[in-house]
């Protein structure tokens, strides 16, 4: 279906338009592939670190007592490598390609962009190494030593600035919802990152407010960066593959502005009951619960757009990953909202449940949608198709199973931990012991995630070296025409 749609569209297109699109794809090829492959390397590295960190929590002598392997170093190293290495690079790669396509403008300034990309990667490498060597700050998601943030801010501004340049050079009259989301993420993140670093490194000394700023930063990365980039990408991919416009443009706009208005208030709910003015976590919690409204808007829109085409998830790799991510977005918002309730939050606060929710946001939602985007974009850049539908199925099922296992185990471990820690006049031993078995399960989940991404990395390397299939037909998860005709359906 994907190829048929594309073929029909091609027929209607004039020769000039096809040439213009080829020029656009050529212009973004190098930077987009650079971000994807480097991002995937970081994803592999960070999942390995996360696996070791996970092992340490039920088997503390795993790999010995080396200083750099201690949980307090390897856990922040893995989360920062994952965030700045994979999440930001993959998101920027997809954003650049989608923006160039929708603006119908070729990318300029490739040299500057690639230089910034290289510096970004070097800075992340230094940062992760510094955490492992014991120079981390222990500010969650801002663990890099303080000299690195200006470098990351500047290079991010250059990379995201290219999105704005593309938008200004746009040759199409229409502005799509994906562009709204991508532009918003490009504008908000430098602001968020600058604020958090200024307040924590340049104007420190506010004690508990430092922790609150940090919690707000974590919430903002999730809701004002990962959410808009993930949703913007899904808003591009889903209509493309089902070959229909978005169900309701008004609903899409409403969802976008609701997220924009509410996102910045969220974050500090993780410190409810903490030594802060109580209104700060209360306002954050309220905003988080109200996020259910944009979530419903997005969910209705995706669902109605896919109406009648749901079976395509059996064939299109892109749609399958994107649909998984879109469902996980609902899970992210619903679980975040639930944790704001005191009845539940008093048990789940300061337990593994909260890191489980972050994992839903950055992996089950964001990463899975980005995998879908990579399956869509890369063949268009390298003029060959993915080697094997079976390999893609392997990647999907191992990722889906691994990430779901990690989330489920974190939630179970966290709840059992939280229930035990709510017992008055009791010691700590129980909470360590009740959660241990689930944490073993989480380590297994990381093995699945690592294997799936190893396969994916190998697959994308073949593509980059133009060793994919030479074919005009996109690689599907299953041979669609054969299966449908077997069921008496005309494809």
């Amino acid at each position, binding site marked *: 279906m994907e190829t048929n749609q594309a073929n029909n569209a091609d027929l209607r297109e004039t020769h000039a338009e096809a040439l213009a699109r080829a020029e656009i794809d050529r212009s973004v090829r190098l930077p987009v592939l650079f971000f994807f492959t480097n991002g995937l390397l970081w994803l592999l590295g960070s999942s390995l670190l996360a696996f070791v960190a996970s092992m340490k929590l*039920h088997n*503390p002598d795993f790999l010995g007592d*080396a*200083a750099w392997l*201690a*949980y*307090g*170093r390897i*856990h*922040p190293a893995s989360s920062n490598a994952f965030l700045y290495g994979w999440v930001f690079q993959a998101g920027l790669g997809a954003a650049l390609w989608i923006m160039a396509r929708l603006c119908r403008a070729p990318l300029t300034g490739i040299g500057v962009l690639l230089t910034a990309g290289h510096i970004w990667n070097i800075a992340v490498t230094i940062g992760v190494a510094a955490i492992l060597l014991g120079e*981390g*700050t*222990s*500010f*969650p998601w801002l663990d890099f030593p303080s000299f690195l943030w200006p470098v990351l801010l500047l290079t991010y501004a250059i990379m995201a600035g290219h999105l704005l340049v593309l*938008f200004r050079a746009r040759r199409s009259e229409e*502005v799509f919802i994906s562009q709204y989301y991508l532009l918003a993420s490009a504008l*908000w993140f430098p*602001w968020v990152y600058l*604020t958090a670093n200024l*307040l*924590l490194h340049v104007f*420190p*000394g506010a*004690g*508990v*407010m*430092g*922790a609150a*700023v940090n919690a707000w930063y974590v919430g903002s990365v999730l809701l004002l960066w990962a959410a808009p980039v993930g949703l913007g990408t899904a808003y591009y991919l889903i209509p493309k593959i089902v070959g229909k416009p978005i169900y309701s443009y008004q609903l899409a706009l409403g969802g976008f502005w609701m997220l*924009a*208005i509410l*996102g*910045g*208030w969220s*974050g*500090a709910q993780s*410190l*409810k*009951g903490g*030594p*802060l*003015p109580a209104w700060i976590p209360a306002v954050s919690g309220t*905003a988080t619960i109200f996020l259910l409204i944009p979530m419903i808007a997005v969910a209705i829109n995706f669902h109605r757009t896919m109406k009648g085409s749901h079976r395509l998830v059996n064939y299109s790799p892109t749609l399958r990953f994107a649909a998984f991510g879109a469902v996980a977005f609902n899970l992210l918002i619903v679980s975040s909202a639930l944790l704001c309730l005191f009845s539940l*939050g008093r048990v789940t*606060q*300061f*337990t593994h449940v*909260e*890191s489980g929710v972050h994992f839903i946001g950055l992996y089950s939602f964001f990463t899975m949608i980005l995998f879908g985007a990579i399956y869509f974009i890369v063949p268009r850049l390298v003029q060959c198709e993915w080697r094997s539908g079976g390999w893609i199925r392997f990647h999907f099922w191992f990722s889906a199973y691994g990430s779901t296992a990690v989330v489920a185990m974190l939630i179970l471990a966290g709840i059992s*931990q939280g229930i035990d*820690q*709510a017992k*008055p*006049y*009791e*010691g*700590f*031993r129980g909470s360590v*012991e009740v959660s241990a078995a689930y944490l073993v399960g989480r380590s297994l989940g990381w093995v699945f995630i690592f294997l799936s991404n190893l396969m994916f990395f190998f697959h994308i390397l073949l593509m980059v070296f133009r060793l994919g299939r030479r074919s005009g037909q996109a690689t599907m998860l299953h041979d669609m025409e054969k299966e449908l005709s077997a069921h008496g359906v005309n494809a």
Partner: protein
Amino acid sequence: MKPHRYFTLGLVLAFGLPWLVMVVGPHAAMRHLEPIPYGEADFESAFVPENSYFPPGRAGLVAQGYRVYAQEGCAYCHTQVIRPTYAGRDRWREGWTGRGPGWSGEEPPTEVRETMPLDYLGERYAFLGVQRIGPDLANYGWRIKDEATVHRQLYDPRSVHSWSVMPAFQHLYEVRRRDGQGSDEALKLEAKHAPPEGYEVVPGDKAKALVSYLRTLRKDYIRPGSGEPASSAGGEPLPSAVPAPAGAPGGAPPGGAPPAGAPPAGAPPAP
């Protein structure tokens, strides 16, 4: 205005408001917290020395230890928060309270008050923490009976609690050849982690700083004007603040006479 100008303006306004209200405003306000002097009522109702401040200063290698606490990522497993009753039952956990059964084994379990912003006065960044993979450390200072046990726990956690999942921080310690009788500081280790014959394990500078910092972890000082009974502070007198001749701090603290002296002399951690 062109449509995309409205769009940019919308983005700036939507985000700018929470940015000001939730982040910049409170941060600016909280940087100017000052210690509060105890008043007459406090001297009568509790073991509060005259001319003392809330919170009292912290003595020792606080700044250096705070830095080790950050470098080793302690905050990823330990919180420093006692939540109020509506948000959890932290106030009655064994060992998290000021002097619970973990302290002497004889006293009945006591409760501790919830933490408040002034408890973290002078910290660049309060390590409230992320998760409780290990116990809360808000009042850990009370639980230290002797430093030797803390060092042994840091060096070989499983020798103190077989079920512990804490990393062994052996890199903070030094294994060296024993000289004569050996050092007083040498750790008393059991077979598995004992150094070879003729050697001993002594705390390095970082380990000493870390334990010195941990000793100062106390967030149960009596609140000025609270009329709290002394029991929650364990009945031990508060260390008196050292008056210093510096200029008067700005801003009149609530519920008390204007501060006559300077803030406590304890060095605020500044890594």
